[in-house]
């Protein structure tokens, strides 16, 4: 048995022994465990599971051990992921600090910043949010206006950020700010970390078409930010941002049904459309729509896997990561559309009696999914990037 197989065996045994039964099925929104100064847990099992994983560094399995990570290499991390999936283990800790800021700090942060922030992220002590987009900017992210003026010992930040996910529940925010308005727009941007408890910071939720309001608009009114919170060089924030965006796109490409409905399109078809004497979904057009989607969805999964294998083996052209934000989010939108089409009018319930939770979650999830191909680099921006970077088409 090779080292990886031994590792797999160990992981499997550890998970079997340590993951409480209640943590072995998908978490509804209420059952999720998020980071935070005042962290709360939906259940004792969730707390136990979080603490056990945290103590092994497996909230962030592939981060260095010295900063509270698990120190696993890519292959080991994949094994842990596979084994958790096999057993149905929930993600023990959710935080944008884990998904986005941490990797950026590991690459661009100075030692003091790493020491200060990364272990807290790994241990779920701080909940982070992201301040990139602005009301006027949209896809043209680099045109951002929120400014940070150098005031000697601190920056003075004024402006506003939009689509700051859960800003009203977060402890810190990482932001792109304009530190030089007189140069090419990408060249005057810096990357700042800001404590949301600073004076002058406020966040107000934006209601979405799905009825949710996890996005906020965040305002900065003469906010003083210590100089040590600058990540990377002054006016070089765009490089950090690009690295981070790439990461965000990868995450979004892997995003599952957002609102957590438990019913699949196939199950919905069988239950809500019904089958004919041959066991075929009774409506031929819906059945064809369903199978088209199921193929696309499965192709996407295989392509994720192929990308991993190419990375591991060094084979292939390495283009897959460039397409996955576009393909993944479009496929998720299609999945949600397929699901509500199968559910019929039961997939369009909003609230109140007459609809079970899976049904209303399907409605909400469908509506929420519309944001996926807009946020984090719209599908149009992604296609531009593929045309330019992969196909080499001229500007």
């Amino acid at each position: 048995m090779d080292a990886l197989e031994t590792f797999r065996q160990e992981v499997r045994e550890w998970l079997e022994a340590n993951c409480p039964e209640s943590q072995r099925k998908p978490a509804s929104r209420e059952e999720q465990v998020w980071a935070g100064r005042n962290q709360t847990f939906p259940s004792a099992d969730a707390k136990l599971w979080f603490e056990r994983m945290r103590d092994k560094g497996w909230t962030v399995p592939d981060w260095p051990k010295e900063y509270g990570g698990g120190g696993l290499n890519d292959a080991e991390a994949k094994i842990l992921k596979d084994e958790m999936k096999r057993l149905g283990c929930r993600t023990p800790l959710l935080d944008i600090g884990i998904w986005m800021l941490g990797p950026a700090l590991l690459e661009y942060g100075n030692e003091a910043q790493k020491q200060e922030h990364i272990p807290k992220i790994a241990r779920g002590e701080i909940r982070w949010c992201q301040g990139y987009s602005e009301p006027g900017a949209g896809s043209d992210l680099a045109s951002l206006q929120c400014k940070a003026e150098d005031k000697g010992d601190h920056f003075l930040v004024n402006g506003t950020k939009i689509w700051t996910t859960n800003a009203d529940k977060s402890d810190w925010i990482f932001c792109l700010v304009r530190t030089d308005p007189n140069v090419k727009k990408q060249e005057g941007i810096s990357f700042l970390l800001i404590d949301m408890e600073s004076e002058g910071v406020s966040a107000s939720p934006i209601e979405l078409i799905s009825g949710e309001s996890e996005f906020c608009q965040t305002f900065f009114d003469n906010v003083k930010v210590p100089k040590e919170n600058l990540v990377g060089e002054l006016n070089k924030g765009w490089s950090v941002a690009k690295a981070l965006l790439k990461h965000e796109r990868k995450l979004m490409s892997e995003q599952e049904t957002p609102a957590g409905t438990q019913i699949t399109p196939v199950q919905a078809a069988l239950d809500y459309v019904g089958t004919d004497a041959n066991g075929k979904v009774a409506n031929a057009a819906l059945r064809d729509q369903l199978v088209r989607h199921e193929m696309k969805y499965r192709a996407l999964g295989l392509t994720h896997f192929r990308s991993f294998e190419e990375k591991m083996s060094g084979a292939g052209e390495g283009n897959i990561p460039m397409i996955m934000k576009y393909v993944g989010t479009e496929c998720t939108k299609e999945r949600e559309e397929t699901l509500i089409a199968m559910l019929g009018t039961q997939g369009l319930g909003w609230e109140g009696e007459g609809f079970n939770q899976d049904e209303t979650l399907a409605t909400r999830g469908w509506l929420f999914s519309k944001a996926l191909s807009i946020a984090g680099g719209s599908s149009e921006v992604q296609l531009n990037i593929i045309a330019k970077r992969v196909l080499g088409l001229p500007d």
Partner: protein
Amino acid sequence: MPLVLNEEQRLLKDTAKEFLGSSAPVEALRKLRDEKNEIGYDKALWQQMAELGWAGIVLPEDYDGLDFGFMGLGAIIEESGRTLTASPLFSTVVLGASAILLGGSDEQKQSLLPSVASGEKTLTLAVDEYAHHNPAAIALSAKAQGENFVLTGKKVCVVDGHTADHIVVAARTSGTTGSTDGISLFIVDGDAEGLTRTRRWMADSRAVAELNFDKVSGQLLGELDKGWDILDPVLDRGRICLAAEMLGGTQEIFKRTVDYLKEREQFGVKIGSFQALKHRAAHMFTEIELAKSVVLDAFTAIDEGRADLGQMASFAKATVNDLYYLVSNEAVQMHGGIGVTDELEIGFFLKRSRMAIQLLGDSGFHRDRYASLSGY
């Protein structure tokens, strides 16, 4: 088969545009939603609509109607699709009154239609029993009891079903679920004993209800077991009018999207200058123009009593279903971030589009029906 509105119809359309734009814009629907209005529409507004003659617009003059034809009604409904106006126009005039008119005895017509025309009474039609439109799959049973019948079973997604004064109910009097034979229509009072009506809160904020019948008394409408002959053309009228509403909504969000493309700047230029968006917008425009022709021809099929009414209804509904789906998705995407906020009204159209797609048959249902009616 005129495919343009005549002078009178154009005037009517202009009036509707003006009235609905000022009295019942999309904000009015938002208000109904936010205050969780149980009725689901503004009764005062409906009175005004009735005073404009809209409640009796397609009814014969004998029943105090204007006998103006469905082409005119379609023009109004198309405008109401632009404003997403909630009113009993569809449930009462298109569905309920059509059923009475096509299937009722003189007495039934006399007793109900004038009060529809005046706006005094509202009607609706209860057909579907499952999450997908399937008018032959009727299980709700009606059994003779003396002069009348008693109805037992369930109906879902009945438009304005919890407020209508009278409900035309499709029930099974013989045969098995799935057969078009053995269906009969009944008039049931909204406040009849044994009838439980529950408003359902849908994504599009419009009123539909679930109706539970526990030995509810109903009055036969038309011939026993031959209800399909009435139900089928009534549903076709409904499908065509719904297609008109959807076409109105589609045009409205398309217009708003094109306006946004002309106004929003990104990367230092108007986003409407990006060729990929231009081509998508231009393509949508062509699809809208094709759909307009189809819907207009479908209305002439009603007004001229054409034999291909069923085909035209399925043609129109399938075409507009797919169109509204496309354009609502593109409208959200092209509006970018604000497109997914509740503040922007595009979301209201997106939600309405999907509900309207489901009501009276999705595209698969109608393509199947069109092909069968065309002999293939």
